[in-house]
């Protein structure tokens, strides 16, 4: 008799949540990286606004998700940062994509397009 601490359903739920979180995290990191590539050096608030405007409000990344991801890009060497005084308010931390970040963004974008296209075709095929 083995005693499982978590019921199987909860284990499954936990695993799925973890996968979803990782998937979202990966996609959003790609979005942030590509956005940085398009906008050039930018600070967090403006970068998020740019994404929102560019996607006409269809893609809104919450700050609680975005700022930790930006820090991860920095730690991974995909983005560099610097601080700059603001005309009003506290100093701003600017993010700038690195060459490594640009290369990763290209590869990851290609992968995403392939995956999205394949999944879309698959779903369409099964949806008939």
């Amino acid at each position, binding site marked *: 008799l083995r005693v499982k601490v978590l019921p199987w359903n909860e284990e499954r739920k936990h695993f799925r949540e973890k996968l979803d979180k990782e998937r979202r995290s990966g996609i959003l990191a790609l979005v942030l990286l590509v956005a940085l590539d398009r906008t050039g050096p930018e600070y967090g608030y403006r970068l998020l606004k740019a994404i929102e405007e560019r996607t006409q409000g269809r893609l809104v990344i919450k700050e609680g998700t975005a700022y930790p991801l930006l820090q*991860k890009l920095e730690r991974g060497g995909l983005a560099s940062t610097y601080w700059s005084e603001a005309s009003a308010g506290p100093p701003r931390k600017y993010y700038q994509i690195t060459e490594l970040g640009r290369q990763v963004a290209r590869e990851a974008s290609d992968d995403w397009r392939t995956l999205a296209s394949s999944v879309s075709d698959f779903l369409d095929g099964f949806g008939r």
Partner: protein
Amino acid sequence: MGKLTDDYLGQVERSLETDPSTRDQVIQELRGAMDEKLGALARERPEAPIEDLEKEILNDFGSPTDLALAYGPEGVHLRRASGEIALKLGRAVGRGTKQIIKWGAIVGAVALLLGIGLGIWAFYEAAPYVEGIVERQVYREAYSVQEFCSPDACNGQRGPQSFALTDGARQVRLDVDIDADHAGRAGGSVEVLFLDPTGQTKYARTFNLTSDAFYREELRWEPVEGEYTVSIEYHDFVGEFGLIVSTIGGRI
């Protein structure tokens, strides 16, 4: 920015496990982002109370501990991480304890059943073995005589008395004990004659008793099947006389 934001950022700061410099930068960046967002919201909705806008912003940032945790391993929320480790340890210990309790109960139950089984076996089967041990080790009385000749002296013959040994007896033992009475009175004599079933004299002795003399004898022989005979004859005997014939082995 108001107290709500300060409290929120304070919680994030306490939850971040990182070097002070990085922590300060994270808090500064978050504060700047909140400040800018608040300004934008205030411009969009000038009629809205600042506190409401502040709450809305903090809601978008999520819970402070989750935010700190989202900063990843290098900015991990120590207490939560510790809590998770403790939880995992607790689960492991819990599993271990449950296993110990479970197996302890099983071993206990098996031991109990074995004990009951042994008890039943001992009750029905082991008794002869135990008896055998007792038989091999314990003397059992086959014949005895004890007489107190005091203050009046004893005279005359007692017996001959006959007795048989039990089946399977492996040894015959004769104990003779002759002594003054409790007041120290002693005198006269007593003759003891002990014959085996074949009529052969195994023991014959006359004891002259004085106040400063007493006798104790212990003799052993191989048993012979049949009836043994004991004869005792007193001559003005004053004192205490005892004789015991016992055997080892045989049926109880």
